[in-house]
């Protein structure tokens, strides 16, 4: 073991752009990929790291100084720059135990299928980065790898369980039989459900019917990355008190940053596709002839117009919250589209635009405070993994639209409270979480009994 630890230690010193490709090459070979194909993917993965580092550096260089100027000009203490989920994913992949995420995902899924606790085969290997994200975060907060491992196992089990509960609703909304989404953003249903019950009590709420599609056609342009980036960049420039030329310059540079992010991040996916396919085949081969529902990433729901319309209609409220929420440190930039909260809301309301919108507005403070909490942690992780070099004019980086703000905070802070010898608060919080879980299970149980699609035959996911 000492030898392995020594090799790992030496490799991590080379930095993530070298370390992870080597690990992935090894995993690829274990999963019987051809050497040249595995090597090509591994190099592409290194390229993805280098490219993401480059773009993050660009963003911090562009927005950092303007943000500082804005702080002194307005007196708003927005010292944590939101750089969105793509850097979070890159940072996660760079964590030294990131590759273990695949092992945890696959083993927990196989055990749960074997024990008949789930009928879902999760083939969405992209979102394995969340396991690494949680792992890095929890070990940083609690100092314990054991707690991180337990949290990750619970995480995968929750993904499969919630994916199974929402499956009939996903089919109802997409007409896709045999699939569901196992994305962790659906953990947000836990706290969205009580809010949903509350919103349902607003007098007359059920009489408002607005078609999200017509609005989407008109507002859609504001959701395009470069347009959104330009607007946000200009607003930050104006708040910094710059002249017209500098404001427009900042706008274009911000637009460039938001346009480049998905481009460079997609390199990660292209590098991980072969590994992902190999992992899926590996799992399928363990259960010949077994019927599965296939667990996928959330975009299978992206045809629901409410998601896009509400995300755009939410932006003014995001900007308002930035200014009015006491104690907020987050300067929104990279994740102004609140997909992660809006998609589960749309699933709960069956795509009702007005209800999803109100629910999302009510829950905005949670995101801001979770991101304020996250800022020093994410900054430390980013620096320690070597993905990001923080320039001196930037205080913190953070991720405003975290996919699971509540669950992330809970999984990191509650064990920490126990560690610190506190009893009452963490016990109360745990009971609250159990209560929310119970409400959730009861809701889907009742809904799925009514549903006509739940009796559908299971589709066979045949091995290719």
């Amino acid at each position: 073991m000492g030898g392995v630890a020594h090799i790992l230690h030496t490799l991590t010193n080379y930095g993530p752009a070298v370390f992870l490709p080597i690990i992935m090459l090894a995993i690829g070979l274990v999963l019987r990929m051809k050497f040249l194909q595995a090597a090509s993917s591994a190099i592409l993965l290194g390229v993805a790291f280098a490219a993401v580092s480059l773009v993050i550096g660009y963003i911090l260089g562009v927005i950092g100084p303007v943000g500082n100027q804005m702080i002194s000009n307005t007196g708003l203490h927005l010292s944590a720059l939101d750089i969105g989920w793509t850097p979070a994913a890159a940072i996660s992949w760079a964590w030294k135990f990131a590759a273990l995420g695949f092992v945890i995902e696959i083993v927990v899924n196989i055990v749960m299928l074997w024990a008949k606790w789930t009928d879902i085969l999760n083939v969405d290997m992209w979102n394995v980065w969340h396991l690494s994200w949680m792992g890095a975060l929890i070990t940083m907060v609690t100092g314990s790898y054991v707690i991180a491992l337990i949290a990750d196992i619970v995480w995968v089990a929750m993904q499969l369980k919630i994916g199974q509960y929402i499956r009939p609703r996903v089919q109802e909304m997409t007409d896709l039989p045999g699939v569901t989404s196992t994305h962790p953003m659906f953990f947000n249903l836990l706290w969205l459900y009580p809010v949903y019950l509350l919103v349902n009590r607003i007098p007359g709420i059920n009489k408002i019917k607005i078609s999200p599609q017509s609005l989407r056609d008109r507002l859609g342009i504001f959701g395009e990355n470069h347009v959104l980036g330009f607007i946000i960049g200009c607003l930050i420039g104006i708040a910094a008190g710059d002249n017209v030329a500098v404001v427009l310059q900042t706008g274009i540079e911000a637009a460039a940053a938001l346009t480049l992010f998905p481009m460079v991040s997609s390199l990660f996916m292209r590098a991980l596709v072969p590994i992902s396919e190999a992992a899926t085949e590996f799992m399928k081969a363990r259960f010949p002839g077994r019927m599965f529902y296939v667990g996928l990433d959330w975009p299978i729901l992206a045809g629901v117009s409410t998601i896009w319309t509400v995300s755009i209609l939410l932006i003014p409220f995001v900007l308002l919250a930035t200014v009015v929420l006491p104690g907020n440190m987050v300067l929104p930039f990279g994740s102004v589209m609140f997909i992660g909260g809006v998609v589960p809301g749309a699933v709960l309301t069956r795509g009702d635009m007005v209800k999803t919108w109100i629910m999302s507005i009510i829950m905005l403070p949670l995101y801001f405070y979770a991101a304020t909490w996250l800022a020093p942690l994410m900054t430390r992780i980013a620096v320690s993994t070597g993905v990001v070099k923080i320039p001196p004019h930037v205080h913190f980086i953070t991720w405003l639209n975290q996919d699971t703000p509540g669950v992330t905070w809970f999984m990191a802070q509650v064990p920490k409270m126990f560690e610190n010898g506190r009893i009452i608060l963490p016990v109360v919080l745990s009971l609250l979480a159990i209560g929310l879980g119970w409400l959730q299970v009861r809701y889907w149980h009742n809904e799925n009994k009514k549903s006509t699609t739940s009796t559908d035959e299971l589709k066979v996911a045949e091995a290719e």
Partner: protein
Amino acid sequence: MPKKILVPCGSGVATSNMAAEKLRKVLRDRGIDAQIQAVDFRSLASLASQADLIVSVAPHGEAKYPIRVINGIALLTGVGLEQCINEIVDALH
């Protein structure tokens, strides 16, 4: 001039690239030359006019596009993949 296929998802990062890579592989295996691009849904409306076909993993959208949209969920699940590829090949011709 190879035909241009757009494969959209939420961010143009994950799911779309997964499906696009798969599509690239199966079309190459069949000797079909096509330019396949992973995009995000928000820019789909602007890009659709310059492409020949959309292969989407999120059907049931009410949005209308000037070119044909084919359900490509099979690229992710592997269920009914043959049929899906045949449909795409037919549409390209």
